[in-house]
Structures are given as structure tokens and as C-alpha cells.
């Protein structure tokens, strides 16, 4: 059994999921059992929930969402001094090179394309958190 992923203070690492698909939220629940997950349905919802969870260690971000898209959300938090240090990994069906570049230029730390396997997400989460801690 996998142990919980802990931060420097010994508490479980917190991952904010920003995604409009209920199916994908359910997949994250099963794939990332060692993390505390905060579920958000779009960019606006995520902005509100970030206020309650400024200690999030990572954000997994979809691009195509209603109300506020992933890129809008990313640009907004990168301007915010409180949240700009939280690493963001984009998880999207858009997998062309220009899509990836656009996300990385906007400040994302990583990019995973859908459909994804459990190991793809775990690798992205662990690498990004590891890089942040290092």
C-alpha cells in the first residue's frame, strides 16, 4: 500500500483539481489516494476555493472549462503574489505542440495530455512537487 505524501510539516500534500468533468474528478480520487484533494469545477470555483486553501502544494488544471478557462485562471494566479508560487500542471485533451507551449509560457510547470494513465499523473505530480521542494 502506498503511504501518504507528506509535506515538510508532516501533513498530507494538498492538490487542487480544477476540472469540469465529473468522470475525471472520480479518476483523480482513485489515482491520487495519498494526497488531500480539493475539487473545483472551473476557474472561478478554483479562485474561490484557493482562498480557503492557500496552502495547496499543486494545482492540476484542465484548459477547456465553462465560466473561466484554464489559461485565464493560470494567468490570474500567476499575477497574484500569494498564489503565484503554487506549481500548476495542465491536464488537457489539447496536445499539439503550440497548446503545450502556450501553457508553459503562461507559467505552467508541466503538461499532461488526456487520455492519461495513472503513472502519467503520478509522475507529473511527484516530479513537480519534488522540483518545488528541491
Amino acid at each position, binding site marked *: 500500500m502506498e503511504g501518504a505524501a507528506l509535506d515538510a510539516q508532516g501533513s498530507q500534500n494538498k492538490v487542487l483539481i480544477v476540472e469540469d*468533468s*465529473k*468522470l*475525471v474528478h*472520480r*479518476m483523480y480520487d*482513485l*489515482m491520487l489516494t495519498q494526497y488531500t484533494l480539493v475539487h473545483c469545477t472551473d476557474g472561478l470555483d478554483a479562485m474561490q476555493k484557493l482562498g480557503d486553501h492557500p496552502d495547496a502544494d499543486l494545482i492540476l488544471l484542465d484548459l477547456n472549462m465553462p465560466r473561466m478557462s484554464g489559461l485565464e485562471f493560470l494567468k490570474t494566479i500567476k499575477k497574484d503574489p500569494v498564489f503565484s508560487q503554487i506549481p500548476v500542471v495542465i491536464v488537457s*485533451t489539447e*496536445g*499539439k505542440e503550440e497548446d503545450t507551449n502556450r501553457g508553459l509560457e503562461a507559467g505552467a510547470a508541466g503538461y499532461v*495530455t*488526456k*487520455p492519461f*494513465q*495513472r*503513472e502519467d499523473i503520478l509522475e507529473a505530480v511527484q516530479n513537480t512537487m519534488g522540483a518545488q521542494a528541491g
Partner: protein
Amino acid sequence: MSESQAPAVVLGGPSDDPGGIDTIRQLRQSLERAAELSKALEEDLEKGPPVIEEPKSSDELDVLKRRLDESEKDRAELVTQMIEAEHQAGRLMNLYVATYQLHANLDPGEVQNTIAEIARDLLGAERFVLILKDDDGTRCEVALASGFDEGDAGPYSGSHYEGGDALVDQTLADGVLRLAANGEQDAEALAAVPLRVEETTVGALAILSLVSHRVTPLSDDRDILDLIAAHAASALFAARVCSDADSKVRTLESLVKLTRGH
């Protein structure tokens, strides 16, 4: 609808393994074999490091070489089994999530959304269409068309599908899951997945293209295609029945209130 016969990969009627029983069996076997190999390695480790002695003869060297080769082979097999077990676990997880979400809601719109999410997020479908037959089975409604540019949907552009894609037409007629072979005539769809309630075909999911970064063929996801065929229609059917019943109850309640009011 077109009666032309397109050469397709016909994948059979109702799923042979709708509950993923074979997958679970394979996974169990992989895990058991991995456990055996892991136990053997642990036992070797418990014996402590091997005492290295100068080999006395070429026979002893041969024996050592053979043992080393066997250990290497075991290690490689263990790695293969672990990767296979991980892969099987991922497939089971996808099947579980898809089934759970399909039956988690009794709102017909939400069930349609879930079918779209399975197509997009689990299969990597870029353009796809959900077609549902009407109550008497004579006309086909385009319930959902996703990923099309304006004016680019071909036979799926209107509110009803009148036929025109041979693969989809055949699947709507006989309820058989089909994957397109190369060079298909009169067929744009890559896959036509029947939606069945018991033995009746009530519609189809037509997948017309996949996201460009998906490198594996759709046949690799036969489990999920089977699951859609077996579960999507019944989930949709249950949601519609519930929605209709709810609407009738509300109408009756209104009538009762009116009657009592007078």
C-alpha cells in the same frame, strides 16, 4: 439508410466480458506470479550475500553463469509482470469509473454528458456523435455532436441522422460493434458502438476522429467500447423513465391540488 456493406472489423455482438471478469482473472494471475517471484527474490536476499569463491573448474563457472542467467530472466519476467499488472489495474480503474459515473445520475442530460466524457477523456475521441432512435425506432435523433466545426458535421449536421455512414448504418441496424478497417468505403466513422437495452439497439455512438496525440488504435480500448455498448443505453433509458415518471407525478399532484382547491 445506406445498405452498402463496408468492410469493417466486426467485434461481435453483446460483450463477451461485460463485467471485466477476464481482465480481473488476468490481473489476479499477474499479481500471483509477481508475488511468487517477489517471494523467491526475498528468500534469496534472506540467505545473505553469496559467498564469492574462486571457481575451481569450468563446470562451476558454467553453473554460476546458468544461475545468473536464470536470475536475470526472473528479474525481467518480474518487471514485465509488474508492468502488465499496473496496466490491467489502470484498465479496471477506467472501467470502474465509467460504470460508476454512468449509473450515478438519473438526469438524462447528465447521463449524456457522462457518455461524452467517456468518449473524450477515456478514449481520446476528438469528433463523435451520439445517435438515439426515437420510440418507434424509425428515425434517429442526433442527441449530441461534439468536436465539429460549423458546417463540417456532414450527415450528422441536422437534428436527425438520415443515414450515410455505412459503418454507423450497419451498427444501428444489427447492434454489432464495428471498427473501421483501412480504406473503408462510404464510412467516415472510425468506430460505431451500438447502444443496447437487452437485445434492442436504441442508438449508437459514432467516433469519427481521435486526438492527434493518441498513438494506440481504438481496438486497444475494446473494454471501454464494450462497456458503452452494455451500460450507456440502460443508464440513459433508466434516466428517461425516471424523468418521465417524475414529470407525471408532478402533473398528477398539480391536478390533485386543483381538484381539492375547487
